[in-house]
């Protein structure tokens, strides 16, 4: 056997020791050992080493090993399942995936930073508004505490509520998908919309005593709701419930639903003659689909959405109002209640005077003001959607549906039209409904086909039954 490297020698020694060399290799190595006595001595050392290691003493036996182990096994079995829903060996993999996912989300967030910033800013604003308890500080007084049924009916027909009788001002509201929510404080327009009484209304539509009673009941209920919807704050603030703007339509729909078909037709005609900006469709209202709330902050219980106006600001805020407390306050401050009309009028004039400087806390709020009006427009997507479970669909009547002062100011032709046609037609005053087509004088270049408005919705469908039992939302505007 020729000379070999140390490494090769070590390996061969090891294999020889274990008797793992084949016969030929073993014979060659034994020849090598015979020729190299120092390697033979090394082999002897390796054999001694192996003997020493084999004779190595082990650890003392533990007689209690099983007892201890069984105790641990019991504890192990009683331990709750691992926090991970997978085997422990997948923890590193799961951790790696989590890191990758976190990195991906991080990159995404960085890329979408402007959108995210905008979103967070809006949320912050909403949260601020949500807890803006200081907007309506001090005592609150319900503005419409002494409405009579005629005034409530006026609200149903025209969306107007009287503010100051002396100053002849009124609150007007409207809500539609196209135009959003509108709230206006302005001079009343009795010259173009003569006051309507419940008696007159019932007589016009030839209501039966039972129907008269139903209308009375609806108006009484609505009066309470209106009382809970507009508040005057001690700190020169005014709060209007966001749902007030659609409540008049709800009322009109409910009144229509309480009537039989002949009365419904007369009601439509009455609306046209009394120049109501609304009419209704004699057919079951389409199913209302309330849009998903989207990424809004959930409203805490007891909070209602109000449009809150102060001389310095205008905002939409969630406000918790303790009605019982307010009623106690109202009872205690009768003197304040007596002067409320003047105070309200003065306050609205102040709002109008400061309209340009008023801070709008929501970008979707628009303010219009003039010498005799102060108007707020809210985009339709801002307010929380509420189900409008009306039996009949109430729609705006164009073009006479222009009812807001700021719109009239923006459309001088229409203003001119109303000014020159300020008196209702004689047949209305004589309780005789017009027949056929009523035409405006050709001098103004306008032809209004009332039949197309009044009789357009044909009553082929039976009148739907009102479902009084179902009250889904605790909304003060729900009848």
């Amino acid at each position: 056997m020729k000379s070999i490297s140390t490494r090769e020698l070590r390996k061969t020694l090891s294999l020889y020791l274990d008797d793992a060399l084949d016969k030929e290799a073993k014979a060659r190595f034994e020849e090598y050992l015979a020729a190299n006595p120092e390697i033979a001595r090394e082999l002897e050392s390796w054999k001694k080493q192996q003997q020493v290691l084999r004779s190595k003493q082990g650890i003392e036996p533990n007689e209690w090993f099983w007892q201890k182990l069984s105790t641990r096994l019991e504890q192990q079995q009683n331990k709750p399942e691992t926090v991970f829903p997978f085997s422990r060996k997948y923890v590193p993999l799961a951790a790696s995936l989590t890191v990758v996912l976190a990195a991906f989300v991080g990159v995404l967030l960085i890329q979408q930073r402007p959108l995210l910033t905008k979103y967070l800013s809006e949320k912050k604003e909403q949260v601020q508004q949500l807890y803006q308890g200081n907007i309506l500080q001090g005592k609150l007084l319900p503005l419409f505490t002494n409405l009579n049924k005629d005034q409530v009916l006026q609200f149903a027909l025209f969306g107007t509520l009287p503010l100051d009788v002396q100053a002849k001002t009124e609150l007007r509201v409207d809500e539609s998908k196209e135009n959003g929510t509108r709230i206006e404080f302005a001079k009343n327009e009795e010259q173009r919309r003569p006051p309507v009484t419940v008696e007159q209304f019932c007589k016009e539509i030839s209501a039966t005593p039972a129907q008269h009673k139903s209308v009375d009941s609806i108006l009484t209920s609505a009066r309470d709701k209106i009382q809970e919807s507009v508040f005057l704050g001690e700190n020169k603030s005014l709060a209007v419930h966001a749902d007030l703007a659609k409540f008049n339509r709800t009322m009109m729909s409910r009144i229509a639903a309480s009537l039989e078909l002949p009365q419904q037709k007369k009601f439509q005609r009455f609306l046209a003659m009394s120049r109501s900006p609304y009419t209704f469709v004699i057919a079951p209202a389409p199913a209302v689909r309330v849009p998903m709330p989207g990424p809004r902050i959930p409203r805490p219980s007891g909070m209602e959405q109000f449009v809150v106006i102060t001389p310095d600001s205008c905002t939409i805020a969630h406000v918790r109002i303790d009605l019982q407390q307010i009623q106690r306050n109202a009872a205690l401050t009768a003197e304040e209640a007596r002067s409320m009309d003047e105070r309200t009028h003065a306050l609205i004039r102040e709002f109008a005077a400061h309209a340009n400087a008023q801070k709008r806390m929501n970008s979707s709020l628009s303010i219009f003001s003039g010498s005799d009006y102060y108007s707020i427009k809210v985009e339709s997507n801002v307010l929380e959607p509420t189900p409008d479970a009306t039996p009949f669909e109430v729609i705006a009547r164009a073009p006479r549906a222009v009812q807001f002062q700021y719109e009239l100011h923006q459309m001088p032709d229409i203003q001119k039209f109303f000014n020159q046609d300020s008196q209702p037609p004689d047949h209305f005053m004589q309780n005789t409904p017009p027949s056929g087509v009523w035409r405006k004088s050709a001098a103004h270049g306008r032809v209004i086909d009332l039949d197309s408005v009044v009789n357009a919705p044909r009553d082929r469908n039976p009148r739907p039954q009102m479902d009084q039992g179902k009250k889904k939302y605790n909304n003060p505007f729900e009848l």
Partner: protein
Amino acid sequence: MSESKNIPQRMVNQAVVSVSDSSLDRKSDDVLITLFQSGEEEAFRYLVERYNQRVRNLIYSIFNESSVVDDIAQEVFIRVYEALPRFRFESSFYTWLYRITVNKSRDELRKKRARKFYSLHAMLDASNAELQSKIRIVPEDGWAKELVNKGLQQLPERFRVPIILKDIEGLSYEEMAEIMQCEVGTVKSRLSRARGMMRKILAPLLEAQ
């Protein structure tokens, strides 16, 4: 290996016949495992009692610290208890058991290294232990034992395990390869190197004899 795959059914039959027999300690590993897998939990105790000393010795050889032996051995048997229902008789039980023991010991060594690395106290303790070992008066007859134990500890883990498995436990190359999860050639290579390293450490002892 192919023969061992045929064992289970045969062993099941045998187990069914002999389940009422109280002398479980005379049954083979495969029978005990089959009994355990069929719900006879008592069989596990016989496996533990049969192998716990070998497992403890292996751990003791790897660590040379009696204080950690029982803890690690218990961890090993807990792992065995959890995995035994899935044991498929593709290797002998003790090879499988040794593999679990070696893997568990490796994990513990890694943790121990990390602890030493991060813990100043551990470093101080280690230096104290080292100092104490130098000044300790070792009885004449215990000198060889002490040298062997210390020598093993001086070997890196990947050389320590093969020499323990071969020269202390007396396993074959194939069994070692299965336990160490590597090729037989690697086992031979590592073992020869480990023996060479050990030869240098034990030189005073071997030359004195």
